C-alpha cells in the first residue's frame, strides 16, 4: 500500500467532493480548450481559403458579405457585376490574374459555381477521377460533395435556383459529372464547379429582364468615369465585346502583380466603377476582432470556472484533512515522515487536477466533434486535425498550478501537525 495508492483511495473514499471538483475542472478546462481549438480551426480555414486572393470584386454592398460569399461561400452574393467591366479590370497592368465566379444555384444545398480552370489551380486541387469540365453543363465536384452526395462520373443532376435546398429547379438543363477533386481542406471541397457559360445558359430566361436595369447602371457609371483620365485604360476593347455587355458574373477573385496594386486598385474600383472591391485580409481581421469580443467573454467565464474549481479542490482537501488529522498523526507514529505526508496531500491535489484536465481535454474534443458535425450540416464546413496545441501545454501548467496552490495550505498544516496534541485531543 504505497502513498500513491493511498492518495487514490482517499479520493475515491469521498466521492461527492471529488466529483464536484472534477466536474468544475472538466468544465473550465474543457471550455478553454474547446475555444482554443475552434478559434484555431476557424482561423486556419479562413486563412487557407484566402490564400492567393488579394482582392475580391463584386456588386456594391457589404464588403464582409462579399468576402463571405465569394471566398468562403457561406453568405448570399451581393448581386451581379457586368462581365465586361470585370474584364476591363482584369486587363489592368497591376492585375496578375482575375478568376470570374458565377454562383447562385445549388444542388442539395451545395453551391454550383461557374468559373474557369484557374479557380481549382488556386487551391492546388488535383482531379482524382475523370477530368476538369470542358463544355457547358459538365461539372467537376469537390471531394466532400462527391462523398456526401455519392456522386460518380457520368451522374446527372439538375441545379436548383437559390443557395438553399428546395429552390426552383432548372429542369431544362441537367449537369453531368465529369470529374471529382481530391480533398484540398479548403472551400473547394464543398463546391460543384462548372463553366461560367453553364450558369449563363441556365439563367438565360432571367437575364432578359435584368439587362435593361444593368445597362442603365452602366451608362451612369460611364458618365462619372469620363471625368477621370486614368479611366481610359479600362475601356480598351470595350467595343469588341458589344454582345457580351449583357453577360454578368457574380464576383471576381483578383491577384495583384505587385504590392502597388493593393495601394491603388481597391480604392480606384470603389470610387470609379459600379463595382465594389473588398480586401479579404482586411475584412477577415475585422471579422475576427468582432468575434473576439464573444471569445473573450467566454474565456473569462471559463477562467472563473477554473478558479472556482481550484477553490473546490482546496475546500475538498481542507475538509478531508480536518477529518483525517488523527489519521495523519497516526501515520506519523507508524514511521511516516513529514515530507511523506506533505507528498500525500500534494499528490491528491495534483491527481485531482490532472484527472480534471484530462477529462476537460476529452470533453473539448467531443465538443469539437459535435461542432464540426453541426458546421458540416449547416455551412458545409468541417474541421480537420484534432492535434495538441501549444496553448494546451499552458492550460496543463495552469491546471497543475491550481492543484498545487489548492493543496499548499493543507500541506503546510500537515507538515506542522502536532502529533501528541492531535492524538490526545481525538
Amino acid at each position, binding site marked *: *500500500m504505497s502513498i500513491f495508492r*493511498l492518495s487514490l483511495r482517499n479520493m475515491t473514499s469521498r466521492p461527492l467532493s471529488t466529483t464536484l471538483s472534477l466536474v468544475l475542472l472538466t468544465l473550465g478546462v474543457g471550455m478553454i480548450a474547446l475555444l482554443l481549438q475552434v478559434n484555431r480551426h476557424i482561423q486556419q480555414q479562413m486563412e487557407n481559403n484566402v490564400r492567393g486572393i488579394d482582392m475580391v470584386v463584386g456588386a456594391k454592398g457589404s464588403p464582409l458579405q462579399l468576402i463571405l460569399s465569394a471566398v468562403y461561400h457561406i453568405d448570399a452574393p451581393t448581386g451581379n457585376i457586368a462581365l465586361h467591366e470585370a474584364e476591363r479590370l482584369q486587363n489592368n497592368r497591376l492585375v496578375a490574374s482575375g478568376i470570374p465566379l458565377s454562383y447562385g444555384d445549388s444542388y442539395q444545398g451545395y453551391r454550383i459555381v461557374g468559373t474557369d480552370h484557374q479557380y481549382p489551380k488556386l487551391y492546388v486541387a488535383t482531379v482524382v477521377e475523370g477530368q476538369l469540365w470542358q463544355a457547358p453543363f459538365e461539372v467537376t465536384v469537390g471531394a466532400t460533395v462527391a462523398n456526401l452526395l455519392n456522386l460518380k462520373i457520368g451522374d446527372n443532376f439538375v441545379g436548383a435556383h437559390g443557395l438553399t435546398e428546395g429552390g426552383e429547379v432548372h429542369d431544362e438543363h441537367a449537369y453531368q459529372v465529369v470529374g471529382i477533386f481530391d480533398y484540398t481542406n479548403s472551400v473547394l471541397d464543398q463546391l460543384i464547379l462548372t463553366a461560367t457559360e453553364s450558369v449563363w445558359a441556365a439563367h438565360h430566361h432571367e437575364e432578359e429582364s435584368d439587362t435593361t436595369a444593368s445597362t442603365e447602371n452602366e451608362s451612369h457609371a460611364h458618365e462619372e468615369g469620363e471625368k477621370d483620365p486614368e479611366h481610359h485604360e479600362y475601356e480598351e476593347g470595350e467595343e469588341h465585346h458589344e454582345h457580351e455587355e449583357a453577360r454578368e458574373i457574380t464576383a471576381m477573385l483578383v491577384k495583384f502583380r505587385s504590392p502597388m496594386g493593393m495601394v491603388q486598385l481597391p480604392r480606384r474600383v470603389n470610387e470609379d466603377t459600379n463595382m465594389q472591391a473588398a480586401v479579404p485580409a482586411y475584412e477577415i481581421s475585422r471579422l475576427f476582432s468582432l468575434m473576439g469580443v464573444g471569445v473573450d467573454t467566454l474565456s473569462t467565464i471559463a477562467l472563473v470556472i477554473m478558479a472556482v474549481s481550484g477553490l473546490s479542490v482546496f475546500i475538498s482537501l481542507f475538509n478531508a484533512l480536518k477529518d483525517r488529522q*488523527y489519521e495523519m498523526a*497516526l501515520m506519523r507514529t507508524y514511521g511516516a515522515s513529514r515530507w511523506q505526508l506533505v507528498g500525500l496531500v500534494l499528490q491528491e491535489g495534483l491527481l485531482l487536477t490532472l484527472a480534471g484536465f484530462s477529462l476537460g481535454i476529452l470533453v473539448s474534443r467531443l465538443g469539437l466533434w459535435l461542432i464540426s458535425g453541426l458546421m458540416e450540416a449547416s455551412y458545409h464546413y468541417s474541421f480537420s486535425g484534432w492535434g495538441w496545441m501549444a496553448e494546451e501545454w499552458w492550460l496543463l501548467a495552469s491546471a497543475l498550478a491550481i492543484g498545487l496552490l489548492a493543496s499548499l495550505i493543507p500541506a503546510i498544516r500537515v507538515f506542522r501537525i502536532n502529533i501528541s496534541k492531535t492524538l490526545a485531543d481525538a
Partner: protein
Amino acid sequence: MFKTYSLSFAYNQQVSFHFPDIELDAGENLLILGESGIGKTTLLHLMAGLLQPQSGRVELMGTLIHELSSSQLDRFRGSHIGLVFQRPHFVRALSLQENLALVQHLARKPVDKSRIKEVLDGLGIGHKLSEKPHRLSQGEQQRAAIALAVINRPQLILADEPTSSLDDKNANRVARLLQEQAFTTEAQLIIITHDQRLKTQFSNTLTL
C-alpha cells in the same frame, strides 16, 4: 533494555510533570497506574518520542531517542515502537489488511501478506481481513489496533488506556493478547492506565 531518566515536561507554569525513572529488561512488562490528569498520556508520548521532554532522557536499545532528528525519530519509531491508543483509529479509506500493509510500508519494510494474516489470526480477527476497520465491533477494533502496533515486530509496545472503553471480558482479553503478542515478538510492553481491573494480570506495576 528500555530506560527513562528524570523525565519532566511542562505544558505551562501551572501544569508541569516529573516522572519516576523506569528501567525494563528484555521480556519485562510494566503496568503504570494513575488517576486522570496525572500525566499518563504525557508520559507515554514522551516515551514514544512524540513529545520533547523539558529535561531527562529516554533510551531504547542504546539509542537516546530525543537526540535523533525529526525524520530519524519518525523512522526509529516506525520500526522499533508500537503504539496502541485508548480509542482505536485507522486510515478510513483502507481495509484492515491495507492498513497493516501501509504500516509495513511506512516502516520501510516489504509488504508481507503472510505476516499480516499471522498477526490477525493470532488476535482472532483473521476473517476480517478485507473489512473496513470502522465497521468492526469495539472489541475487534481494539484487537485490530494491537495488530497495527505489533505488525512490524517492535522492541517496545506502548499502550495508552487500551481497555478503558471495553467491558470486563474484552478488557481481560485485550490485556492477555497484548502480553501474548509482546511475548511472541520479544518486545517489552508498557501499559499506562487507570483501569484497576488489569492489576491482577501484571506482576510489575508502578503507580504515579
